């Protein structure tokens, strides 16, 4: 079924927490090289869906295929080894380690295949030079020796993205990458994602902010109450009546 253009194929994905149907039968196809936005109002099941793809939740039902291989239910570290890298909504950098060490930790995936090989030296000149290349790509090379916990939120986000890129993933997943960023930092971030897109990276991102999603995505999938209510280009989605209702409905409730 999956042609060569398809990278990720999700079929009938469900996650139930007791009686709550957080995600209830979502299908989704992601093509190579595209940027797909997963949007929807609060509590729509975006993050739950995201966490199932990354291996942080086990789906109640359904399949997730990456390059035709079923990966649903694999633990997070195994999913990472299959080539899916992620960032976190609440950044999770290794605070007491330097920016350089944070990034180098991601290299272990390729350089240290087993537990016992992990005893080998990681800080070789070649590895450190490669670390700097990644840090330069996200413009934080100047902070290489700084403790990651001392960075501003915007720079932590960049570090997380650099760390994810260092895994050389086939799919990069960003969980609300602009949450909590200042206007300037958001602009910088948009520029960074555009750069990644131009380089051919396949990206899936969860985004709450419609404007950010519209600016970044080739296609969008809209979730509401655990089901997919729309899919298409940002233009199509914005004019979709079901989407307008879902978002406006939320606005009414907020009032």
């Amino acid at each position, binding site marked *: 079924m999956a042609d060569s253009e398809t990278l990720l194929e999700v079929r009938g994905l469900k996650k139930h927490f007791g009686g709550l149907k957080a995600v209830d039968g979502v299908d989704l196809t992601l093509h190579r090289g595209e940027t797909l936005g997963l949007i929807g109002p609060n509590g729509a099941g975006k993050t739950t869906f995201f966490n199932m793809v990354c*291996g*942080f939740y086990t789906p109640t039902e359904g399949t997730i295929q990456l390059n035709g291989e079923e990966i649903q239910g694999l633990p997070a*570290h195994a999913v990472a080894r299959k080539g899916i890298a992620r960032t*976190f909504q609440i950044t*999770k*950098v290794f605070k*007491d380690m330097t920016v350089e060490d944070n990034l180098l930790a991601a290299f*272990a995936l390729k350089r240290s295949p087993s537990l016992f090989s992990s*005893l080998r030296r990681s800080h070789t000149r070649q590895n450190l030079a490669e670390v700097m290349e990644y840090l330069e790509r996200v413009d934080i090379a100047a902070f290489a020796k700084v403790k990651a916990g001392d960075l501003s939120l915007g720079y932590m986000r960049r570090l997380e993205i650099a760390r994810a890129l260092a895994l050389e993933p086939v799919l990069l997943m960003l969980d609300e990458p602009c949450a909590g960023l200042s206007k300037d930092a958001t602009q910088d971030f948009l520029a960074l994602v555009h750069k990644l897109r131009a380089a051919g990276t396949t990206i899936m991102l969860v985004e709450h902010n419609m404007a950010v999603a519209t600016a970044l995505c080739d296609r969008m999938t809209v979730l509401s109450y655990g089901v997919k209510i729309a899919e298409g280009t940002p233009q199509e989605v914005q004019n979709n009546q079901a989407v307008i209702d879902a978002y406006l409905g939320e606005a009414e409730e907020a009032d």
Partner: protein
Amino acid sequence: MYEQVIAINIGLAMLLAMSLNIITGFAGQPTLGHAAFYGIGAYTSALLTAKAGWPFLLALPMAGLVAALVGVLLGLFSVRVREDFLAVTTIGINFVVVAVFQYVELFGASLGLAVPKPELFGLRFGNTEILILLVILNILVYLFMRHLPKSWLGLALGGVRNEEEAAASLGVNPDHYKVFAFGIGTFIAGMTGSVYAHFMGFISSTDFSFPVSVGVLSMAVLGGLGTVSGPLLGAIILTLSPEVFRFVSDYRMLVYGGLLVLMMRFQPQGLVGDDSVLRRKWAGLCKRGKGGERRG
């Protein structure tokens, strides 16, 4: 000789503090039962040499392996419990292990075990030989500790210590690395126990009781958890202080406990940790030195 005995005690303490530092400092897994593994190593070595007739040099690594085996089991368990629960669990393990030593006939029960002095090529191990052995072991473990932060293992443990989920997202299996850290740390503690048993010539269950674990933790915390040389400094200070100050030996637990509280409150990074008072002073001195040179 008095100085030799103190040097041996320091050597033992440094090994214990460094081994605990791998588990608690680097992997971030709080353990309050480290003396259990020290004891398992000591009893293993005592039984192997006294009852099975093994040579000391074979019993030494075997003591490490047996302790590591139990340590790996604890590690597998620690994967299920976190933080404070793990700390409480390890206290329990310490008491259980001591109770086993105290009540099981094989371990000499309340009478303890006599341990033969080791011989090597007809040379009887006196305190000097024990001291030389401890210096060698300390150098080896210290070199390992120096290497650790610059290794894939150190980076993986750093990830697990800081943010387990983020470490997993980088392909690190947090459970494997935690268990590995427990294995390495308890292996070193077991070997240290073996040296202790053969140095003392006699062991009993109370040598490995909970206060010993607290003492080892205090050393690591005082010097700086997760630092390379901090636990060495902590071990030296806390082993020497009862010799120098009488009250420290009278109120040992009070000193350990008070130290833990004070360090956690005022210098959680330890004496040699990042941005500690000691380090700032040292950096200030270095700067002043350089400034002087420039002026000259």
